[in-house]
């Protein structure tokens, strides 16, 4: 199970990648996709939606179960991955790449620092 060093993480098994300045990309971790099994449906928000950290912004559904997606930080949805809505299996095959979910323009770019680093997230999944 890989946990890229350069990403930040949440206890809800999402990753956050800083794009440029105050924009971040969000997805679910390899651990999360492995727990879910084959993802068959993804429900993502519309661009322009304002999210507070902890808000439910969508769902990922496998044949066995459903998981809600939680906004990792405060911000506005500025992009959604249409490819993953079309081909949800990208979340399984490339969770940190092609399987990304949304991009957020953060209300406060500094809040990224409050997320888990790779080492701390590893402890969450080992726990």
């Amino acid at each position: 199970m890989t946990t890229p060093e350069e990403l930040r993480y949440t206890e809800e098994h999402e990753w956050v990648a800083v794009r440029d300045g105050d924009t971040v990309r969000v997805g679910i971790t390899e651990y999360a996709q492995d727990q879910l099994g084959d993802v068959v449906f993804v429900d993502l928000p519309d661009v322009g939606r304002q999210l507070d950290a902890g808000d439910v912004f969508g769902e990922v559904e496998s044949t066995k179960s459903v998981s809600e997606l939680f906004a990792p930080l405060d911000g506005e949805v500025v992009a959604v991955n249409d490819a993953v809505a079309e081909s949800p299996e990208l979340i399984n095959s490339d969770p940190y790449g092609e399987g990304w979910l949304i991009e957020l323009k953060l209300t406060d770019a500094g809040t990224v620092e409050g997320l888990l680093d790779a080492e701390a997230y590893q402890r969450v999944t080992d726990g």
Partner: protein
Amino acid sequence: MKTPLHEVHEGLGASFTDFAGWTMPVRYSSELAEHRAVREAAGLFDLSHMGEIEVTGPQAADALDYALVGKLSAVTPGRARYTMMCNPEGGVVDDLVVYRLADERYLVVANAGNAPAVLAELTERAASFDAQVADRSPDTALIAVQGPASAEIVGAVAEADLAALKYYAGTPATVGGQEILLARTGYTGEDGFELYVPAERAPEVWRLLTEAGRPHGLLPAGLACRDTLRLEAGMPLYGNELSAELSPFAANLGRVVKFDKPGDFVGRAALDKRRDPERVLVGLRGAGRRAARHGYAVLRGDQPVGEVTSGALSPTLGYPIAMAYVARDLAEPGTELAADIRGRHEPVEVVALPFYQRRS
């Protein structure tokens, strides 16, 4: 608890789940690939968590006729029967496959979670008969090969006349020099076989089947795809469609209750009064891709009229399917209802079961 094949599954990189106290493989790689393999080629399942109980003796048939709702005395040696054990109130204790191995010898196969209850009830219910009840579960492994290629694969490793082995029949066979019970049964909606194997020989039999299956596209298959396969085939799962509160009639399985057999049987009087349940089991077809799941409400307008027992996006059909209990007057195919999928009301239509039927 772990099955005799646990190390084999670990070697295959399986993900595990707890099922009725057993650590079972939920998938090896992708449950969708495993599901497809069973529909198009073959899948190899470890079902060693199931309970095997042997009932023997001069009155074994009479004991089972009393203990179960079916007429097991009418089963020809070498054949199997799908049946149920009910409680005195007519609720289902478990659904079972019973093999008649010989005139005075039966094998009762119970669901993992219910096996202790079935063993205890059988022991008690058989006490006044000249019959013995013995738990064979600890020394029995159960391996299933399911799918259109299963006859060729099993035929390559088993010394047995498969052409003569009908659906719901069982025969002694030899695999790798080992005597086993080979049955043509399953829980996937495909042609398939179940091999009852001495526990210590299970890894060897698994290996032989894996090798014979390789050219046919056989994949090891976990519980995740087993659930979607049986759901597509409209087969009930105890704990979802069947329970101690529900009668076989509610599940549209009243045909397994044989009122015409002589003598009393446990649940007879209560079952006779439960032939017309208020709610019955139906199939539901959804639109889009969001599946109704176990426990979700079924609605008519805004009125709750039932509850989903199992549901998934059907891997074979590509649309959401579910089984649900609904009010009897809404059970007609074509009836338009809705499912409450986490707050959103999605339209569903009552359809005939099964959702999927193999071309035979």
